[in-house]
């Protein structure tokens, strides 16, 4: 009985939302309740320090850093053998990430890879999840005479292409640094390979390293921007309750994108530090034959 | 037909190739569920191999997407 009442109320709310939104407005022939959201690809500058523009996406990146530092500071302030709720959650997160990296890269390299990769995961995931908070699309500045906020104070950093690009460059640099650390100058033999078809493979290897940069950047940027647009448009069309489904979807997308960003970086790092095998064996055999 | 309109038709037709990828993804999912029903203890290997198959089926679908994108920019 109680279940039925809850379901009825939810259905009524969802229907009201649809009726109030752009769909219902178009059917009833009146103006929609929520104005059509404006889509900005470029972030808006909030204030300037010297010649340096502090944009809303940068502010949200700083906020994410603060929140993550505060969360981990609070959770690890009084470390107990039997952890409290926050400490248990953080331990679970760290164990999950460490287990993932150890699974891909092996025990030997997991400890070296862990700090930077876990940071990337936590930053990307928390940044995406915090962008679902209602303060993000509501708090901002209203120009003179405007009906509603057009310049937001905060905006998910992933929707600004600079953040994914910066993360991609960081991941690219660390992969190369780890590769050079593991093989010293012998790492260059990945790219410069002697002899016929191997030269071509070396060029492909070099090219694929730069394609990774592009791939990383546009995957994160595209997913985050598309997620934000989906939320805006669904809120415009359906007003309330129904967009909650899409909020759940975005919760999933944020975590999965962070996981993929970290996972691919581990894969590339593991492949950069891997002991020479496979095609290198052929190379040695060829060198021995000459 | 105008050249621009023909190009856009081509883009749409190229993106239709995603149907095959979608069907493949569905078949992989159903196959994995079948396997899981027959042998629930093997959920670890089944899941990980299912994702391997999913990733490559998805990659085939991406070819259609790439063709569509390149048609828009290049043709």
């Amino acid at each position, binding site marked *: 009985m109680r279940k039925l009442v809850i379901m009825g109320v939810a259905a009524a709310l969802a229907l009201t939302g649809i009726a109030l939104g752009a769909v219902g407005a178009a059917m009833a022939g009146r103006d929609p309740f929520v104005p059509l959201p404006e889509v900005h690809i470029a972030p808006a500058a909030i204030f300037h320090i010297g010649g340096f523009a502090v944009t809303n996406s940068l502010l949200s990146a700083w906020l994410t850093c603060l929140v993550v530092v505060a969360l981990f500071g609070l959770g690890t302030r009084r470390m107990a053998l039997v952890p409290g709720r926050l400490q248990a959650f953080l331990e679970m997160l760290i*164990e*999950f990430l*460490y*287990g*993932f990296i*150890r*699974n*891909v*890269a*092996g*025990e030997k390299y997991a400890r070296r890879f862990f700090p930077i990769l876990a940071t990337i995961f936590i930053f990307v995931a928390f940044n995406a999840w915090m962008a679902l908070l209602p303060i993000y699309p509501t708090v901002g500045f209203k120009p003179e005479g405007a009906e509603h906020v057009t310049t937001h104070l905060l905006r998910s950093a992933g929707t600004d292409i600079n953040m994914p690009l910066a993360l991609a460059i960081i991941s690219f640099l660390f992969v190369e640094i780890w590769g050079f650390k593991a093989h010293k100058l012998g790492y260059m033999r990945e790219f410069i390979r002697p002899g016929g078809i191997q030269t*071509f*493979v070396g*060029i*492909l*290897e070099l*090219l*694929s390293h730069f*394609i*990774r940069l*592009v*791939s990383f950047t*546009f*995957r994160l940027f595209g997913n985050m921007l598309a997620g934000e647009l989906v939320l805006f448009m669904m809120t415009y069309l359906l007003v309330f309750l129904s967009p909650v489904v899409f909020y759940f979807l975005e919760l999933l997308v944020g975590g*999965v994108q962070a*996981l*993929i960003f*970290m*996972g*691919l970086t*581990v*894969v590339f790092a*593991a*492949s950069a530090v*891997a002991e020479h095998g*496979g095609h290198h064996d052929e190379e040695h055999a060829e060198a021995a034959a000459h | 037909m105008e050249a621009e309109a023909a190009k856009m038709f081509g883009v749409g037709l190229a993106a239709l190739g995603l149907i095959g990828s979608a069907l493949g993804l569905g078949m992989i999912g159903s196959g994995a569920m079948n396997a899981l029903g027959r042998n629930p203890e093997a959920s*670890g*290997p089944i*899941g*990980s*191999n*299912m*994702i*391997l198959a*999913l*990733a*490559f089926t*998805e*990659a085939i*679908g*991406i*070819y259609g*997407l*790439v063709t569509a*994108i*390149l048609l828009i*920019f*290049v043709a």
Partner: protein
Amino acid sequence: MTDRPWWVALGQLAGVGWFIATAIVASTLGGLWLDGQAGTRPLFLLVGLALGIATAFYGTYRMLRTFVESGGRGGSR
């Protein structure tokens, strides 16, 4: 075969499709840009397309190799 958890497989392989897409699109558009600079269309366009497809397959092969090699390491719990 392996006892790796499914999310590890997801993290390793979910990016393969997008990698293929960016490899082909980015190198073809790079070739198109070079053509615009040198006025040799469609020479670099085709070179870029061929290189892009080759890179896509090579990169996929590398990722798959890491996936297979990391198979025997066991689950995290």
